[in-house]
């Protein structure tokens, strides 16, 4: 027995809209079937790619669309594809990164479970663009149901001739492997993911060489997020020029935001980039405001590794540039909201425990630093903080930031630095009084 996620979405809004393509059909239980998907216009972009476009044209279209990576880093997808060395005789590989594991983030799972063919189609087009004939989707191991759905969809796609040999008679061969993970956040990092597919421990690799040059099995490899790839068919169907009209000038298109925490209506909402954060939290269409009508205390706007925003900072546009100006990041688009009855130190204990647990152990600053930070932060939270501990935490953060093999180190310390900067008084109170300034009240609902 497996379960379809009951998560709330704005599919109805998307169905009525011309500009929210990702969620259009995610409430249609038949959408996972290839016939339904095709009836909804699916695989037309793939056919068009194979029959009408050169790989260069595909890359050009995606570059023109301005599509940026939806996994967190926001790097332009078309540009990344262009990094595959021209004329390389080695096999090339595409990996769809479905190792969704950053706390707060649960957007890809909706696409995997409810619109798997959209992911496959995007992967296929991207493969064609980089001359890849074997593509992988790396789904986190716990997403058993999503993997089952994806395998079934893949089987259908083979059966219907969307994958396999000589697809649509165009002479292009493409195979696909569904690879499931084993519970390791770091495998969402592209070099660690590559190691994991190779059967190794999921340690990050040094860059350079970048995966586009030497990735999986030492061959050119492109790793793209699920949502990024799912956006590609729409760009091919309707053109980069159309896609560019969505969102803001530099943050084009739509994006799924996972809204969680102390909101009335948590869920996944597809919004145009540039949507107002406050609206997402408070609009009855989306978050519907804070539970219990409590006061908002803070927001993590882009997944657990992004710096916090305070209530006076949330009247901000959800796009890469605006959030950067606000001192934080769009990240994976995971908006975590917490109200006034939440201790900031308590929140940070949750986050640092996660990063300590997920550190791969390869490089010294991350391996040792996250463990030390966890000890210090727990000590403060439990009332045993010592004078100087805050400064010590800041110093450790500085010695991790920018010093590690992969971005996990940065991810671990950014929210900590931000939490201290934004709520230093609360940290100091904890040390001075051995207890919370605001006591956390986060209880399990009784239900009925």
């Amino acid at each position, binding site marked *: 027995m497996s379960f379809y996620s009951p998560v709330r979405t704005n599919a109805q809004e998307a169905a009525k809209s011309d500009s929210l393509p990702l969620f259009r059909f995610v409430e249609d239980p038949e959408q996972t079937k290839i016939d339904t998907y095709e009836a909804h216009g699916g695989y037309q972009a793939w056919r068009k790619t194979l029959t009408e476009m050169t790989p260069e044209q595909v890359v050009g279209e995606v570059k023109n669309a301005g599509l940026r990576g939806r996994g967190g880093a926001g790097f332009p997808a078309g540009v990344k594809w262009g990094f595959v060395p021209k004329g390389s005789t080695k096999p090339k590989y595409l990996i769809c990164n479905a190792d969704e594991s950053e706390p707060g983030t649960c957007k890809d799972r909706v696409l995997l479970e409810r619109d798997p063919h959209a992911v496959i189609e995007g992967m296929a087009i991207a493969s064609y663009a980089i001359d890849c004939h074997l593509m992988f989707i790396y789904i986190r191991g716990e997403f058993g149901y999503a993997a089952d759905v994806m395998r079934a969809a893949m089987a259908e796609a083979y059966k219907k001739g969307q994958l396999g040999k000589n697809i649509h008679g165009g002479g292009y061969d493409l195979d696909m492997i569904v690879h499931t993970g084993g519970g*390791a956040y770091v495998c969402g990092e592209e070099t660690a993911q590559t190691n994991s597919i190779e059967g190794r*421990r*999921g340690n990050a690799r*040094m860059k350079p060489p970048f995966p586009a040059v030497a990735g999986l099995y030492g061959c050119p490899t492109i790793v793209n997020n699920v949502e990024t790839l799912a956006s590609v068919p729409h760009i091919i169907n309707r053109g980069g020029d159309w896609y560019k009209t969505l969102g803001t000038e530099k943050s084009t298109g739509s994006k799924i935001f996972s809204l969680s925490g102390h909101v009335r209506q948590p869920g996944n909402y597809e919004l145009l980039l540039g949507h107002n954060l406050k609206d997402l939290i408070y609009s009855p269409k989306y978050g519907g405001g804070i539970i219990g009508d409590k006061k908002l205390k803070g927001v993590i706007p882009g997944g657990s590794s992004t710096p916090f925003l305070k209530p006076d900072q949330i009247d901000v546009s959800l796009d890469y540039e605006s959030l950067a100006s606000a001192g934080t990041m769009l990240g994976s688009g995971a908006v975590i909201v917490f109200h006034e009855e939440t201790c900031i130190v308590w929140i940070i204990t949750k986050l640092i425990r996660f990063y*300590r*647990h*997920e*550190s*791969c*152990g*390869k*490089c*010294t*600053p991350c*391996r*040792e*630093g*996250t*463990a*030390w930070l966890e*000890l210090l932060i727990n*000590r403060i939270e439990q009332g045993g903080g*010592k004078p100087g501990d805050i400064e*010590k935490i800041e110093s450790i953060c500085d*010695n991790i930031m*920018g*010093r*590690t*093999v992969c971005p996990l180190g940065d991810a671990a310390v950014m929210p900590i630095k931000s939490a201290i900067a934004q709520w230093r008084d609360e940290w100091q109170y904890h040390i001075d009084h051995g207890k919370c300034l605001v006591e956390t009240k986060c209880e399990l609902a009784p239900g009925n």
Partner: protein
Amino acid sequence: MAEKTDKNTVVVEKTPTVTFTLDGREVTVPKGTTILLAAQSVGIDIPTLCWHPKLTIAGSCRMCYVEIEKWPKLAISCATEAMDGMVVYTDSDLVRKGRAAVIQFTLMNHPLDCPTCDKGGECTLQDLAFAYGVDNSEFDFGKHRFGATENDTTFDDVVVGPEIVLNRNRCIRCYRCIRANKEAFGEFDLGVFERGNHTEINVAPGRRLDNPFSGNLTEVCPVGALTHLDWRYKIRVWLTDTTSSICPFYSSGSNILLYTNQQQNKIYRATSRVNDDIDDGWLSDTTRFGYQVAMSPDRLKMPLIKKDGKQVEATWEEALKLIGKRLTEITEKKGRVCIGGLVASSQDNATLFSFSKLLRKVVGSNNIDFRTDYRMLPQTSGGAYDVLCSQPFSIVGINQSDVIVTLGSDLVKEHPNEYLRIRKAVNFGAVSVYAMNPYRTKSSDVAKKELVYQAGTEEILINSICLVAIEDGLIDSSLAGNLAECISPSTAAESAELCEVNLEDIRAIARALADGRQITFFAGEIVGRSINREAIAAALCNLHRLFGLSGRCQMNILPRHANSCGAVQLGLLPAPVLATKDMLSKLWGGWPESEPQTTDRMMANMKKDEIDGYMIVGANPIMLYPDREFATDALEGLDFLMVADLFETETTALADVVLPLASWAEYSGEYVNLEGRVQKTHQALKTDYDARPGYEIAALIAQQLEQPLFENDQTRDETITKVLAVDSTLPWPDEFLEVKHVADEVDEEYPLVLFVGDDSHHSGYLTEKSNSLTNFQAEPYVEISPTLAKRLGIDDGDSVRVESPVGKIVVPVRISHHINNDVVFVPMNFSGKQVNSLIMRKSRVDRVRISKVVD
């Protein structure tokens, strides 16, 4: 220390260069050079923990930070290539702070038990903490401790192998050991487990860390996480002195350092004395722990002479007088030369040369040899086998090759250094390795193709490579000449079938030989020990000629012992090559008239009473000659036997006079490695009992015979230098040689092929006296395949009877994947079982049967 990585060893002239600024000075290096190596090349030392010159780059410790102008963050110099125009600072404030933070992180959970840590005084972390003035006082929590296990001893140490001790709490997770074990040694008995701050190095589940290179791990470990029992808690490193020496066992002559305490007159350990051209900084365990042989309490301390059938202790004077008397008596009685000698090729140049002169000049005989365990040797020299053995060979040439072919060599056991070289060539270059062996060997794990042939068909196998090249037109047809007429069978297909190999595999080797630009092709002990060695060598000469390998191939049959090359060059063969013979006759004013006799022939003649007196130095034919009965009969038939050795052995037991021989560690000597390179050992121990070096024994015997050998040591050594300078390379035959198939008779009663040789932790008969090495392996076993074990209903460790037509032994079984179903292997290093009693002198292939011993 000027260490280089492999990334940087070959600097081709045309390589483009980059110029950048390093701490204010302009530095030009080949493009692709890392900042770390560029800095080292101009004498700027950047600290490292995880970086190791012989291993791939991990980039994990973050110790080697440098600051690069316009770069947003510190860079790790081990992995960052220097680029044109870069401005790099290796010691800025930012860099020092970055490194200090790394040390502090590293010290967080490190026990700081330096007072009781064996690495104290030679620990990189200790030195760096000192240099950067960092302690762990900022970390005010309890340190993370790995759970105790049942193998724990003192100080959280866990014994993970016969020698290796692991302390996970001291481990700083630099992963050097893992990289060395997997990459450099191809071993999988050590692993990295768990993750994050609980990441630990540990022995693989259900395994012991006991690979033949395991001792190196204690050297690559920058801290005291991996130490070894032999050294542990015995002495502080600063209380020892080091003496340069070389490995006394294998023919490449690994460079080693012996750590001694002079007051105690004791060697505490051996480590590598990195020589990139020879050992590349790695030692086999046999080399590393072999020094204990010299320290053994079982050493012979006094001469023994036989009185009334019993050996009793005697003085040197008594012993020498007796030797002089008996040798003179025997010669006078027979009225002709009937004295011979066997001087092992593990002895130094001075010993070999002195005995050569003693026998040739003083006794006047050509009865001299250095080979103990080769049967049916030719009496003449200059044949195809000698041609191959005389060819130039270079160890670094191995990893400059694009094609490497080996024939009949279980490399790990015979040539551990060369095995690691081949691994290196594969790891760091584009080389194709082809291994041809009569059974699967661990050594072939890096081979692109491992070709397993029917035992005893080597020459036909080589023929088949030639034939396929002709048939497929892989070589210029004019080169083929009359080869097809010289060899039989005359088609590749028939030959391949006789050898039971796949023709496609033969084809692959032929193609590689035809296309290779720089080929290394060598044969090993399985060829050397074969009574068909001459035919195999002839086939190889044909192959060399047919493929036109001159100038693009180093081909050789590699010698076995530390001074095998020296023995050949100094004329220790009954019939040395002409150039050597000429030089020696000139030096000694003549040459004995007597017929040259090999060890093998001398033994046959002992039975016929034609050899009556025999001198053995550092050899144990009773244990090692491939026919125990034959050797025993021979030596028992002598009128007089003198044996000089480190220990009492089965051979000394038969002697009329036994002399205590000094070990290599007790005097300075010179040895010639397989490349012809002369290397020195230095005295590390004083002999506190009356053992004497071989050259001194030779001189003393000569004195007894009233013919002093040399004016003094200096004239001796000058003469040796002169003889070594003779070019003894033999020319390749200028025609194809005949190589015909001779069918081998198979006795159905004995269906299994027996191979003997060294265990991977032993060499010859002496290493049984090293405690560490016997901790790895203390007794003989018979290695069989899982399939054969299943067929015979035998489990690992079961006792089995191994029977041949002439003998039987009972040994435990070791099931191994590195053996074929119809082959068994038994090591020869253990005197407890008479392994050579299974072997017949005249067999091409030794055959046995095995059965389970039911108690």
